[in-house]
Each structure stands twice: as structure tokens, then as C-alpha cells.
């Protein structure tokens, strides 16, 4: 009899085995796609942390850019190694987020949306306007690749080819997701969920909503900054257009279609939609149309997101078998003594 915990662990091992073997079976541009997908997974999972406290900001992708530019500039101008610039760029992002949280959190809902968009554009346009140090509209080039060295090695190994960089990205993102997952299932996660479901009730038992919004914003920004750094050092060049509002809309779509109730929701969203997007590459002009249709259909029939699909299917199967069950989509639970990791 395999219990839940063992099957979860086995599932993860299988997933990782698959992910380790995968790039060797793919073509060059597909390996590229895979790297971007893993980076985007970190972007959406970090974004979801903010949506838990009710903040749907439009500044998230720009903060990714802040991470990208920070890491790139620290590496180019100060000659710091990637292993230093990556976490530093995360910290810089958190500081920028804190700075903006003071004016932004005074705005309610719709105004917060507009305000975060304005703040994001202000940052992005400063990259466009200031050739020094941001490189203006053309952006930054010749961003150094991560170097890997250990004693006894004559020359450091540069990580720039897809497969090595893929494993670097996979390792970093897995670590980040593990931290986010642990946070989700901690006391703080429970508090964030309580704010998500009924913030007024949460307040009445002493939960300071502002403090937790700031916490979520800061943590989310840290990780999206790291995602930005990973992007910058792979592409070797970044420009302001890569962090424009169009990309932010994609992030919103991935998160909404995937669903925000569970940890896996946004991951499912970004993976499914990115793969669909790739498949229809051949259909060029029809692509936006097909993409849009899938979006509309999924919102119509699965308004709770793709993550609700398993429980919906279970409901259908139960009904077919004649069982009467009241099944409610239940988010991941805080495991009291049990821990997955």
C-alpha cells in the first residue's frame, strides 16, 4: 500500500528523471524554449505569491528586468561573478519593491493596478532614456556567462551552451521553488491564504494585512529578480522591450488560466500555454487567434483554472459511477508534523 507521501516523492523523482533526460532529446531551438519555460515558471510562481494577498500588480515583469539589468551591470561594470550577482540582483529587486510598496499600497484595487503599471513604466523608460548606464533602447550587450571553476582546473568552464545552462537554470529554479513551496506550507502560507479567502476575518484576529502584503511583494520580487538574472546571463543581451507590458499580460494569462488556488496552478498554466504556443508556431498568422480561443474556452469551462481539472474529472467519473459526492476544490494543506521535504 503506497501512502500519499511516498507516491508524491516517487512522482517527483520521475519528473526529475524526465527533466534530466529531456534536453538531450530536443533540438537546439527547443532547448532554448525549455530554458525560457523554466525561467517563466519561476516568474509565475513568484507572481502567485502576491496574488494570494490580493495584489495583482503590473510591475512584476519590470522587476524581472530590474533583476536582469542589476545582474548584468554588476557583472560588467564591477566584474563580479554570476554566483554573486544573481542573489544580489534578487536583493536589489526586493529593495526596489519595498521602496515602491509605500506609495503603491496606499492605493486600492484598481488604482493599485494603474499605479503599479505607472511605476513599472517609469523604471522601464529610465532604461530607455539613460544610455549610461543602461544602454538606452539598444540595451546591454556582452553580458558575461556564468563561470564554473574548482581547484585543479586550469581554465574556468563557461556555462553558455543550452544544455549546461539548462541544468544551471533547473537547479536554481528548483531551489527557489522549494523555498516558495516551504513558505506556502508554513504558518506564513496559512496566513497568506487566510488573507486571500477572507481578509476582513483575518484582520479581526490580528493579522496585519499591510505587513503581509509587503512581505509577499518583497519575496515575490526577490525571486523574479533571480529569474531576470538567469535570463540576462543566458541571452547575453537585454533591452527594455523584453520587459514591456505585453509580457506582463502573458504572465497574467498564464496565472489566470492555470489557477491561483494551488502551488502547481501557475506552473500548469505556463507550461501548457507555452507548449501550445510552440506547437502552433507553424501556423504563424493563425497563432494569436488559436491562442485567444484556447484562452476563452478555458476561462468559460474551467474558470477556476487548469489546476481544478483533476477534481472536476473525479467529479465526472463519480457521477458516471453513480456515486454522490460533494467535492470542493481544496488547496494544498499545511501538513502539521508531516513534511514532504
Amino acid at each position: 500500500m503506497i501512502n500519499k507521501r511516498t507516491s508524491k516523492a516517487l512522482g517527483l523523482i520521475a519528473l526529475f528523471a524526465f527533466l534530466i533526460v529531456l534536453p538531450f532529446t530536443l533540438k537546439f531551438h527547443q532547448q532554448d524554449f525549455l530554458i525560457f519555460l523554466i525561467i517563466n515558471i519561476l516568474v509565475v510562481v513568484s507572481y502567485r505569491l502576491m496574488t494570494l494577498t490580493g495584489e495583482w500588480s503590473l510591475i512584476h515583469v519590470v522587476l524581472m528586468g530590474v533583476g536582469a539589468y542589476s545582474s548584468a551591470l554588476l557583472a560588467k561594470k564591477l566584474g563580479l561573478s554570476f554566483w554573486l550577482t544573481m542573489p544580489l540582483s534578487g536583493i536589489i529587486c526586493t529593495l526596489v519593491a519595498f521602496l515602491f510598496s509605500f506609495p503603491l499600497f496606499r492605493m486600492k484595487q484598481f488604482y493599485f493596478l494603474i499605479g503599479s503599471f505607472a511605476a513599472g513604466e517609469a523604471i522601464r523608460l529610465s532604461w530607455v532614456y539613460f544610455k549610461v548606464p543602461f544602454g538606452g533602447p539598444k540595451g546591454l550587450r556582452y553580458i558575461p556567462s556564468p563561470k564554473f571553476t574548482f581547484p585543479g582546473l586550469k581554465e574556468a568552464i563557461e556555462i553558455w551552451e543550452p544544455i549546461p545552462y539548462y541544468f544551471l537554470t533547473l537547479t536554481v529554479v528548483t531551489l527557489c521553488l522549494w523555498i516558495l513551496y516551504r513558505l506556502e506550507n508554513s504558518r506564513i502560507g496559512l496566513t497568506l491564504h487566510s488573507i486571500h479567502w477572507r481578509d476582513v476575518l483575518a484582520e479581526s484576529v490580528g493579522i496585519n494585512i499591510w505587513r503581509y502584503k509587503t512581505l509577499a511583494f518583497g519575496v515575490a520580487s526577490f525571486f523574479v529578480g533571480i529569474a531576470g538574472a538567469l535570463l540576462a546571463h543566458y541571452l547575453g543581451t537585454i533591452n527594455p522591450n523584453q520587459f514591456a507590458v505585453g509580457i506582463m499580460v502573458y504572465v497574467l494569462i498564464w496565472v489566470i488560466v492555470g489557477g491561483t488556488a494551488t502551488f502547481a496552478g501557475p506552473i500548469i498554466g505556463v507550461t501548457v500555454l507555452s507548449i501550445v504556443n510552440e506547437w502552433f508556431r507553424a501556423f504563424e498568422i493563425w497563432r494569436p487567434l488559436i491562442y485567444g480561443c484556447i484562452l476563452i474556452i478555458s476561462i468559460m469551462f474551467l474558470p477556476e483554472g487548469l489546476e481544478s481539472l483533476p477534481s472536476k474529472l473525479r467529479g465526472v467519473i463519480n457521477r458516471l459511477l453513480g456515486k454522490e459526492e460533494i467535492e470542493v476544490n481544496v488547496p494544498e494543506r499545511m501538513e502539521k508534523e508531516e513534511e514532504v521535504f
Partner: protein
Amino acid sequence: MALLEVKGITKRFGGLVALNDISFSVEEGELRGLIGPNGAGKSVMFKIIAGFYRPNQGQIVYQGEDITSQGASAVAERGLVRTFQETTLFQEFTVYENVLVGCHLHARSNLFTALFRTDKDRQKAVVTKTSEVLEFMGLTDRKDQLALNLPLGSQRALAVAIALAAEPKLLLLDEPFAGMNPEETFQMMDLVRKVQESGVTIILVEHDMKAVMGLCEKLMVLNFGQLLATGSPKEIRSNNRVIEAYLGSV
């Protein structure tokens, strides 16, 4: 010194005066009732006391401290907790988790302890406390049920349980008997008495006269934002102004 002093509270919503210069005080250990026709301003009063609204004029003094300008979570930290009119629960959580959230003030975690789980002792204490509160409110059997699947009586008991988990000194109960049948009302009355006996001061807003008259030693009557009368249930029942307020001019 009274536990709670309400001094000259006035609240306007645009041109509408919801509360007009209301003053009263509540001593520790009391079970005070606040009644009045619909729209009298009872819930507005609660929201102001608990920090969800700011009054236009006046002060709220709790345990000698002016808390008028403090927000809801700060007020809760000081032991002043309110329940809500419509059944407000974390519907998607289990009964156990609902109360667990209520224990927030004891279980507080920062990023470090959340990631590295270094506060195991504190979290164990919280688990114990949660079980105690569930036991007190008679919800232990239902602890793994989802809140939205509970019958009405249990949902209301859960709402009180969540508030109790926050260890209030002063509890504001907002129409806990609404929609209950006589049997549920009876059980709820017992629970409210139990809470008072455990040392919590209670202000009860309610329409159900049987519950109010049966529980409260002292009543306040509000109508159109004015405090009409204060007194024992017997005095209130025979007060002409109160009768007029409920039944219209005789």
C-alpha cells in the same frame, strides 16, 4: 476603570448621520446587549469600536488607552475582537484550520522560522490551544469538515471559536442568533454564557429578543443613531420610548 469607554461617537456617511453623539461604558465581566430596529446603527458602532471604521467625532477608550485611530488588526492585538453579521468564515478551510488561523497572535512566524521550522515548540502550543478552543465550543467532532459544509449552528459556533482563539478580553458578537431555530438558539445561548463565564466581556448585538433578554443583564437601545435607553431587560421592556421605536407611535 471601565474596560471600554465610548465617548461622544458621531459617524456620518455623506449626509446620513449613522451615529449621533453616542456615549456609554462597559465594565469588565459584563454581558451587555445592544438592540434596536434595523438600520439603527448597531453594526456601525461595532465597526468603529473594532477599528474597521473611523468616527467623525469622539473617542474609543479601551483599557485606558485611546484606540480610536487604530486599525482592526492593532485593536485585535490588544484583545478586542469582533465577529461578523453574515456568517464570515474561511469557507474553504476545515474547522480545524479556521481556528488555527484564529491563533495567529500566538503562532506568529517570520521568514526565518517559516523556512527553517525553528519554532516547533510554539507551533505545538498553538496546536494544543486550537484543540482546546474546539473542545470548548463543542466542535471537536467536526474538526476535519470543511467550514462550508457545516450546519448553521456549527458555523456560528465556529465564528465564535475563531474569535476566541485570538484570546479576546472584549468580544463583540454581531447577531450570532440570526436565522436560528429555537433549539439552535438555546445551544448558542449556552455557549455565549460559557464564554462569559470564562472571563470574556461581551457586547452582543442581536434582534432575537428571547436570546437578548435571557442573556444580558444590561441593555442599550439604539434608534436612528441615538441612544434611546439603557437599563435592565425589565426596565427596557416597559420603556415607552423603546416601545415607540419598535412599534411606531401608539
